[in-house]
């Protein structure tokens, strides 16, 4: 069972623990959270976020315009070469982060919201609600995630909104399950029972007692899933089910280059972009998990 940050284990080191968890910008080197890999991951994420935010100023060219000869290998003028239409790969890569990052956050946020509500209801109310919600989740989970997403996106037609919708539809059950299992243990805790006995209405009990104490695992999951969302979005675009061309999207860029792998730069750089950001989110997620779960944190430090 998941160990929750707010109960027993945290008591002995309560003060420091709480500070670290809440202040991500805390001083370096004070705790096990700031291992080199974590710092590098955070660095990569920050760099990508900055690139996305300042893309119009950072990108050397317009990502949609032909700015050079077709399929030029990397050179001084085009650091990552040009694609089939003579568009600058570096510029498209930078602009691509403007799609991938916000969309990944949107996918995870929506999934967390939907999955959270379903999971809370299932865990808190139990019985029929639990049965119906969890069988529904099982139904979705029974399909391979990417196949289901493809089917949904193909049915709705290719566009940014539909790709996000498709990915939300396939990923909410993960959150629902995690939240449900936390809620199941939290709702039996004495303070929740006591609150109910004292006449706290259901909604207040959920908001005040249950949510704050069962959200931790889902937040860890979200961080890891951010990477996964980027990956799945790229996969859908690769298959032609993502944003419409000529949008600069990493998956679509890889698909374009895959027609002729001899022009390696067309596919390689967007591939590296996905690799770095997905790895960074995964490592960060691991680090947060280790940090919030003192058992594994202690195991690592020793």
């Amino acid at each position: 069972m998941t160990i929750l940050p707010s109960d027993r284990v945290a008591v002995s080191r309560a003060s420091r623990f709480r500070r670290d968890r809440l202040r991500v910008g805390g001083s370096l080197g004070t705790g096990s959270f700031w291992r080199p890999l974590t710092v590098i991951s955070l660095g990569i994420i920050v760099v990508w976020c900055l690139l996305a935010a300042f893309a119009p100023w950072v990108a050397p060219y317009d990502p949609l315009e032909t700015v050079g000869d077709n399929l030029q290998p990397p050179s001084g003028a085009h650091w990552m070469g040009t694609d089939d239409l003579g568009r600058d790969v570096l510029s498209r890569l930078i602009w691509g982060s403007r799609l991938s990052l916000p969309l990944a956050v949107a996918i995870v946020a929506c999934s967390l919201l939907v999955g959270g509500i379903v999971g809370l209801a299932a865990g808190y109310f139990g019985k029929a609600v639990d049965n119906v919600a969890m069988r529904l989740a099982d139904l979705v989970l029974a399909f391979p995630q990417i196949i289901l997403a493809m089917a949904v996106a193909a049915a709705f037609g290719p566009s940014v909104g539909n790709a996000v919708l498709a990915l939300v539809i396939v990923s909410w059950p993960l959150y629902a399950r995690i939240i449900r299992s936390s809620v199941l243990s939290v709702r039996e805790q004495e303070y929740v029972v006591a609150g109910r006995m004292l006449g706290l209405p259901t909604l207040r009990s959920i908001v005040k007692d249950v949510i704050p104490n069962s959200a931790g695992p889902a937040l860890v999951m979200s961080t890891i899933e951010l990477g996964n969302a980027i990956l799945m979005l790229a996969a859908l675009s690769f298959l032609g089910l993502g944003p419409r061309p000529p949008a600069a999207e990493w998956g679509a860029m890889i698909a374009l280059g895959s027609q002729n792998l001899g022009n390696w730069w067309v596919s390689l750089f967007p591939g590296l972009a996905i690799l770095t950001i997905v790895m960074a989110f995964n490592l960060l997620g691991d680090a947060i998990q280790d940090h919030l779960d003192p058992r594994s944190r202690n195991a690592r430090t020793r």
Partner: protein
Amino acid sequence: MRSLTAKLAVPAGAVALTLALAGCAGGNSTSNAGDQTLTVDTSFVVKTLDPGTVYEQTGNIAVHALYDTLVTYEGSDVTTLQPELAESWEQSSDGTTWTFTLRDDAVFSDGAAVTAEDAVFSLNRLKNLQGSASQTVQGLDFAAEGDDTVVVTSATPNPDVPVILAMPAASVLNSAEAKKLGATDAEDAATSDQIGTQLDTASLGSGPYVLKSYDPSTKIVLTANPKYWGEQPAYSRVVIQNVDVQNQKLTISKAKGDEIALDLSGPQAAELSDDLQVSGVADTSYFLSLNQDPAVSAVTSNPAFIKALRLTVDGEGLAKLFGEGATPAAGLVPPAFAGALDESENPVQDLDGAKKLLADAGLSDVKVALVYPAITYRGVDLGTIVTKVQQDAKKAGIEIELTPQPINVFLQSQSEGKNEINFSPNSLNYPASSSLVNNMAPGASTSLRTGWTLERADQSAIDASNAVTAELTPEGRNEAMIEWQHVMNEVSPYIALANNAGIVVATSDLTGADYTPAGWTVDLAAIAGK
């Protein structure tokens, strides 16, 4: 750079696999060409080797080598018919009857003479089997006069008869042997023909090769026909092997023996080493069709908009995207075929002219949707092509929204006729350019899908289309096609963009490995060592 990219491009497993394939197939490169094996790399699209039902590319290649047709084409040229089983042919003055006189020395691989009866049996069987290729011979009647004369009649004048009879599906079978195996040319042949897959194990033709073995997933092996009535082919054995498109470039680049590859795309062919020979002919045109139904779009049905969009097309730039052998489109007929417009007539991009047309017509800030199939055709992603069209149109102030659709969805939406602009490739069913008129004249099938009815069409387009069909001879029709295209470039809702080439890549010491748009891709029997 080239060797580095090749190494990076293909995973180690694929390298091992292709080397193994090349190893077992390339084989003995001795000096005596007569004992040599020719290896053909192609991505298999084959369902049958029965001439009556063959339709797919790989099947057509093999059938063309196993069987003979009455007439044929040589090399890449599909403008002049050549004699094969027929030594001469002539058209009646009213255009409805064609008479073919057979040569007397042609024999099947079992030594039996090829007679008019065999030809009529084969052609009737093709017609009555009602397979995919049967469509082209509907409306034709075949009759034998004596042993050496085949008479083909058509209810309406049909100058394309010899062209149709050159396609692999019109191959002549040994009718006596075929009947023994259960084949029939009866009208109910579609249900009563009992030959099944027997023609996939042994061929019954008079062609330069006979079938040795057939495995629809791995390879087809042909050996020279010892009783062939013509000149023996240079290679005694031909192995057609299934190599997927991505691996063909590597396989042919590393080929040790005599080898050809059939599915490389234009951009890939452009990167090959100079040791390899590339033969390509631009035979597939790509065009936009703009919906003429004002209820669907007030913009695309506006003649001024069509003219303006036509002026934004950068044919040279598009041809560059298609790579080796591709050309800008002067008209709707690709340059491989008789009746194509000369390249001096290639349109020139005129953005200012386009802007002026739009301004004069009061069209400002126009936005139109372009629907296209999300596929890779001949190694070129169609999305790349339409993105270029979009870029160029934008320079003249036309905003195009691209909508990719899976191919089946696209075909469905295209036939419903509700799309503003469609984009698709177009190949001819048989190499007669006037066949385009059957589909693209006002009120014809393709035109109706874009709302171009007889009522909405300009009279000049109707007249030009009628002028083509009024011609009774192939020469006359090809001539009329020139004028037809001029008119179509003025008043039709079709905008020809560029022509893409089919490509055959051959190792350096081969001759005769020419790509042909005639339907069989390459004539295997014409390939020889230098």
